[in-house]
């Protein structure tokens, strides 16, 4: 399968992502690029991301719509919290998704640093803003959820504090990338930050189990799903997968922008930008 950008035949240059190897330096024996179009090549990946984005967008819309319908019209009123707990259909999935994005971002970024893989680093920088968005949403909704229970907007509760750490890690990652002009050095610095931050994540993970009783009168505990009625769990799961699909769509759309920015001196970007109306 060859994916063609309009007006341009894909022809991935050899050794596109790797540092020069011996064989490529001596210009011998590289596999023909057309025979196996690798999506690790920015140009192929650009086309593939453009194809996948609408599918993920529709999946996100359908799943979030279904999840919200279940959350607001099917799930029963909570015995202790009344209708107020319906914030959880946004709060809990945002928290899941932000942590998952962080793990993905750290993995991509680490792979990019260790293997000098440019596209992996680009993917990491495309994931970061959406991750920061969901970390912010998790904190905002957590504060709104906790206010009537705690009586204050912010409590140094373990889960919220860890989520705050995740938000700061995302913001630090973005700030480092913006502050360093040379993309390779920026990738390396922010990759190190992301990998260091991974050690903060077990704190988040285990704090959920260790201090889950600290949510006060909350009857809805996240650890044993037996406490959740089936519609509540279904709604949260649908919202979680829906937000994940949204993340995929947004990150792929941003990946296309990052690829255009970083490959702007290459021939295919010049041709692509010229051919487009």
């Amino acid at each position, binding site marked *: 399968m060859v994916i063609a950008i309009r007006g341009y035949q894909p022809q991935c240059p050899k050794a596109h992502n790797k540092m020069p190897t011996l064989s490529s330096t001596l210009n011998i024996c590289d596999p023909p690029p057309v025979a196996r179009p690798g999506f690790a090549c920015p140009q192929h990946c650009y086309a593939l991301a453009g194809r996948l984005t609408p599918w993920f967008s529709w999946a996100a819309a359908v799943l979030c719509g279904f999840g919200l319908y279940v959350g*607001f*019209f*099917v*799930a*029963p*009123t909570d015995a202790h919290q*009344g*209708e*107020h707990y*319906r*914030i959880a259909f*946004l*709060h809990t999935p*945002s928290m899941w998704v932000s942590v998952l994005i962080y793990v993905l971002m750290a993995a991509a970024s680490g792979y990019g640093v260790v293997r000098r893989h440019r596209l992996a680093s680009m993917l990491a920088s495309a994931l970061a*803003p*959406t991750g920061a*968005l969901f970390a*912010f*949403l998790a904190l*905002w*909704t957590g504060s*709104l*959820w906790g*206010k*009537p229970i705690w009586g204050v907007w912010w409590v140094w509760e373990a889960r919220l504090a860890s989520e705050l750490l995740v938000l700061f890690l995302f913001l630090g990652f973005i700030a480092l990338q913006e502050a360093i002009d040379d993309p390779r050095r920026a990738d390396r610095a922010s990759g190190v930050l992301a990998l260091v931050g991974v050690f903060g994540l077990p704190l988040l993970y285990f704090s959920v189990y260790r201090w889950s009783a600290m949510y006060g009168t909350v009857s809805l505990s996240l650890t044993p799903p037996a406490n959740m009625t089936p519609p509540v769990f279904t709604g949260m799961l649908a919202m979680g997968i829906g937000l994940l699909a*949204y993340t995929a769509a*947004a990150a792929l*759309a*941003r990946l*296309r*922008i990052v690829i*255009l*920015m970083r490959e*702007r001196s290459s021939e295919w*970007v*010049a041709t692509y*930008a*010229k*051919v*487009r109306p």
Partner: protein
Amino acid sequence: MTWSSWGAFWAMGGDGLYVWSAYLVAIVVIATEIAVLALSRRSILEHLGRFTRINRKPRNPPADETHT
């Protein structure tokens, strides 16, 4: 159906302000991200198109423009 009327739905058992401000902010933030992505994609393509036109045209001989 758990709601007796639309009024009860919007009131959320007295907690409407908390619930709806959570969802409203989520919608605003996500809509902003989508708009920023669309705008920055358009502006970078415009910029790159102009950049290549300025840079390439004087250098290209007229015969080279037939393939565009």
